[in-house]
């Protein structure tokens, strides 16, 4: 056959031979499957909590006091004291952890530079995020509650424990936000004769504020849901205690925990209602954080 009459070679543009393609497709399906595997329990939990909790929650449920689980007859009671406790304790914890955390982040990013101490502090803040929450609770128990004898339990102690939990989270997320602020802004401020503190407070912080707030909100959501730090610091009583600085009190996660392990009838319903309330609070905080991030990104355009 002469070269002129030979069939021109068709370029082989088909996909790679069978097995390779199939294998890749299988792997991709597995990846999709992993996502599905995650949706199922999440959906299951949320659906259960909403279904069982919705029939229980209501204004009276949120505002009335709890009925001790060991009395008869078992009405449903309410979770008012727990909501008050959670709001007060988490607010107090945030008031302590957020400013201290932002200042710590300022140290690492603005003052520490590439120094050894800043690297150590950053590394240890990361490590501290992994400390079990129950250890935080026991720490505050040993160092604070015990000193007051039987009177040591208080919302304040719980706030200390939650604050210790939040501190490293706020430090790391704030630090990431500060890192994003371009150096040209700092230089512009220095060139106008500002001191380092001024530069940080009047230019860098405002520029990073949206991200810092969003990170703080997520840390608050995390703290609101924590039980273990509260176990040995606020004790968990049934009555309402407005005073966050003195006297044992209760909080939503603690209430859910005791109701979950309680054999009494009303406890289960109360638990679901409280769980729904807690998830709603965490969810609202998370959405707010997202909104703040989105708004912040738009402003910086």
């Amino acid at each position, binding site marked *: 056959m002469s070269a002129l009459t030979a069939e021109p070679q068709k370029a082989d543009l088909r996909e790679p031979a069978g097995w390779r393609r199939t294998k890749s497709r299988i*792997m991709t399906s597995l990846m999709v499957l992993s996502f599905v595997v995650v949706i199922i329990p999440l959906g299951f939990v*949320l659906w259960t909590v909403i279904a069982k909790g919705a029939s229980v929650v209501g204004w009276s449920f949120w505002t009335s006091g709890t009925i001790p689980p060991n009395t008869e007859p078992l009405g449903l009671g309410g979770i008012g004291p727990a909501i008050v406790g959670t709001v007060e304790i988490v607010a107090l914890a945030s008031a302590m952890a957020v400013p201290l955390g932002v200042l710590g982040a300022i140290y690492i990013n603005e003052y520490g530079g590439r120094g050894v101490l800043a690297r150590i502090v950053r590394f240890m803040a990361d490590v501290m995020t*992994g400390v079990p929450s129950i250890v935080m609770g026991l720490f505050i128990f040993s160092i604070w509650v015990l000193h007051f004898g039987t009177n040591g339990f208080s919302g304040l102690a719980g706030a200390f424990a939650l604050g210790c939990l939040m501190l490293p989270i706020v430090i790391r997320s704030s630090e990431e936000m500060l890192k994003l602020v371009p150096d040209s802004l700092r230089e512009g401020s220095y060139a106008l004769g500002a001191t380092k503190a001024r530069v940080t407070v009047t230019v860098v912080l405002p520029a990073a504020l949206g991200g810092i707030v969003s990170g703080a909100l997520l840390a608050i959501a995390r703290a609101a849901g924590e039980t273990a730090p509260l176990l040995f610091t606020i004790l968990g009583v049934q009555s309402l205690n407005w005073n966050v600085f003195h006297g044992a009190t209760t909080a939503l996660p603690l209430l859910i925990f005791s109701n979950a392990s309680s054999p009494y009838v009303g406890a289960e319903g109360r638990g679901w209602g409280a769980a729904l309330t807690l998830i709603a609070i*965490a969810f609202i905080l998370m959405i707010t954080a997202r909104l703040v991030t989105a708004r912040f990104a738009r402003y910086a355009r």
Partner: protein
Amino acid sequence: MSAVTQVDPAGTAGSTRALSERRPLGDRTFQALALGCGLLVLVILVLIAITTSQQSTSWFSAEGFKIFTNNWNPSANQFGALAFIYGTAITAVIAIVLAVPVSVGIALLLTEVVPPRRARPIVYVVDLLAVVPSVVWGLWGILVFAPWLQHIYTSIASGVNGTPVLGPLFGQPVSGASFFTAGIILAFMITPIVTSLSREVIATVPTIDKEGAYALGATRWEMIRGAVWPHSQGGVVGAVLLGLGRAMGETIAAALVIGSSPAITSHLFAPGYNMPAVIANQFGESTGVWRAGLMGTAVLLFAITIIVNVLARGIVERNARRKRGA
């Protein structure tokens, strides 16, 4: 020298005195404040170690090395904590085995498969998973999930009873609240953190390497194996270790669904106990050496999680540093 005509707010431009201001007090105070807050982290960590150890000395002196025996009996004044250490290890391992393939799968899905626009709902779902408080997982776990699982366990157990490997693992005894249930719930809880960290690591793989693989005619899976995995290996290991640390320290969900009975057994469907759970459940009514024992268990837990976290962060950082220098 000619006179300067404009008013200088900081002082006469011609004089040198005004140039020599001392560093304002506010500036130095602010720096000290920031430094203090940074050091706070170190101070707290050291204090945790000190105070909890102090509280547990009577346990160490009473038991000595017997703390590592499986002999926890408060009424008989015996406090060997081996069962809890075992339980912590087992549930954490189960959680890792279940969570890591899923988390890495999702991370790869987000970085390699799904276009960025469509990735957002997936990220939201993972974030939602993270937002569910541990006590709610526990509540659902003990009231809904565990009873349901019990049926499944029973059928599996009756099936494998007597068989060589699976029997001891999955045979009788069976309880809804067990090592395995706790492991599953822990897996749900650590998935978000392993996913997000793996995603961060995988996202730093240079696009050039990925394109190079594709340009050679690789399928997506071949590209992942050839270009993505070598780069992100270290970081993913770090992410797994972090998940391990988190699984070991998670208290409330485990306390509710692990079964609360100290036991060292190969039967994963049997009820068990782990370190954070026993502390949560027994601390309230404990006294004396019992309480010291629980504190000491907390010290062990603290030490183990610190070690795991230091390892994990070290690996992640070394991976990142190697990438930067490469």
